[in-house]
């Protein structure tokens, strides 16, 4: 029904902005009934996820309902005239709109930061040279007194980045590519070894990312073919992978075309 994944939102305001954009709503004149119902539909889709933020999404739903009901309050005969003249009267939506607009500014600023982050990642620096050879023996230097614990953390961060730079070329070239088909067989073999059942995470004893990806894809493929069955007993528990039937090599062979 909804193509949008709820995990994609950073909070209730983010979800509201998304809906306002998608429904092409004028943010200064929000049709509360429509927005509220769409919002609540999304919340329903979310209930299974048991997110930490669920309560915050619910509070927002309550607020939307409250605003909506305030706008629906019948205007009595006597007040009608007054209401017509009172153009500047408080709009129940005002606070929400102010909040959305304020939040939107920072959301857009975050997009600009993302761009800066990408640009910065295009240029490389080098670590400072080792100058210990130049240091006279008697000189023992220490940082000045303005150094704080965060400077120390920064030093550590820099170091970590530097270490990534030192990874030798050889680890990234000439890596043997493993096919999904081969990995499907490896997964089945590993399940057989464990009596036909295994924890999902135990199927990933690999260090390098591409093997992990291929293994993941191969499990998806096995699921699709009903060769394995995957279940989760409780939220956040590890998944259990169970071998349902044994796929023949001929059957796996068919995968080549797509690989």
């Amino acid at each position, binding site marked *: 029904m909804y193509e949008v994944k709820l995990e994609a939102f*950073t*909070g*209730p*305001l983010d979800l509201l902005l998304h809906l306002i954009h998608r429904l092409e709503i004028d943010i200064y004149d929000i049709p509360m009934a429509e927005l509220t119902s769409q919002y609540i539909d999304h919340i329903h889709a979310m209930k299974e996820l048991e997110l*930490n*933020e669920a309560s*915050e999404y619910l*509070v*927002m739903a*309550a*607020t939307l*309902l*409250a*605003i909506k009901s305030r706008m629906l309050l019948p205007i009595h005969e006597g007040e009608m005239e007054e209401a017509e003249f009172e153009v500047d009267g408080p709009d129940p939506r005002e*606070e929400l709109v*102010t*909040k959305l*607009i*304020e*939040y*939107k*500014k*920072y*959301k*857009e*600023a*975050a*997009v*600009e*930061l*993302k761009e*800066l*982050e990408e*640009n*910065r*990642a*295009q*240029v*490389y*620096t*080098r*670590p*400072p*040279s080792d*100058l210990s050879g130049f240091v006279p023996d008697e000189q023992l230097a220490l940082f000045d007194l303005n150094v*704080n614990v*965060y400077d120390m*953390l*920064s030093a*550590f*961060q*820099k170091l970590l*980045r*530097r270490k*990534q*730079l*030192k*990874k030798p*070329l050889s680890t990234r070239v000439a890596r043997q590519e493993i096919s999904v088909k081969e990995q499907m067989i490896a997964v089945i073999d590993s399940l057989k070894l464990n009596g036909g059942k295994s924890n999902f995470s135990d199927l990933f004893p690999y260090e390098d990312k591409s093997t992990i990806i291929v293994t993941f894809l191969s499990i998806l493929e096995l699921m699709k073919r009903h060769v394995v069955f995957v279940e989760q007993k409780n939220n956040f528990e590890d998944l259990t992978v169970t071998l349902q039937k044994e796929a023949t090599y001929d059957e796996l062979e068919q995968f080549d075309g797509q690989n």
Partner: protein
Amino acid sequence: MNLNSLMAKIEALLFVVGDDGVTAKQLSQLLEVDMMEIEAALSELATNYSENEERGLELKTLAGTYQLTTKPELADTIKKLVENPNSQVLTTASLEVLAIIAYKQPITRTEIEDLRGVKSERPIQTLVSRALVQEVGRAEGTGRAILYGTTKEFLNYFGLKDLNELPPLPEGTTVDDNEETDLFMTKFQEAFNSKE
């Protein structure tokens, strides 16, 4: 000092200090040359790098210091050799929190959460641990909440010379934040409570 020899010395120093960078003032003290001359040599160096296509380097001001970096158009080549130091990019939530801190610093966690309408402890923790934000003081009043601000590493990470280089905050309706937020929170609470 002769400009050429000054440029050579500066280039050598920039090379040696690496990503620690060096300020024009430090260069002036080290080389015992006045700031005017240093600035002139630095600008000449920068031009040299950018105009000569056989050069792979450029001069950048990051977090207030001059540093040598590789040219951005060579990124694809370098990527083949080394891992990108900034490969662990920040999540949308972290970037959102970081934007709020960058533009509104010093700011408390509660203020950030009011603005975003969502708990923000985890993104803040991530940002602190990545040395992009730090505690810059304590708010007045009860609780003395931690005030957050950005670090030098923040400037470095986003390739900024200083905070003034941050892109201007997108326009929105300007409101007196605190008052508005307080009012909103009160109403919010009322609405919420009335549901229970």
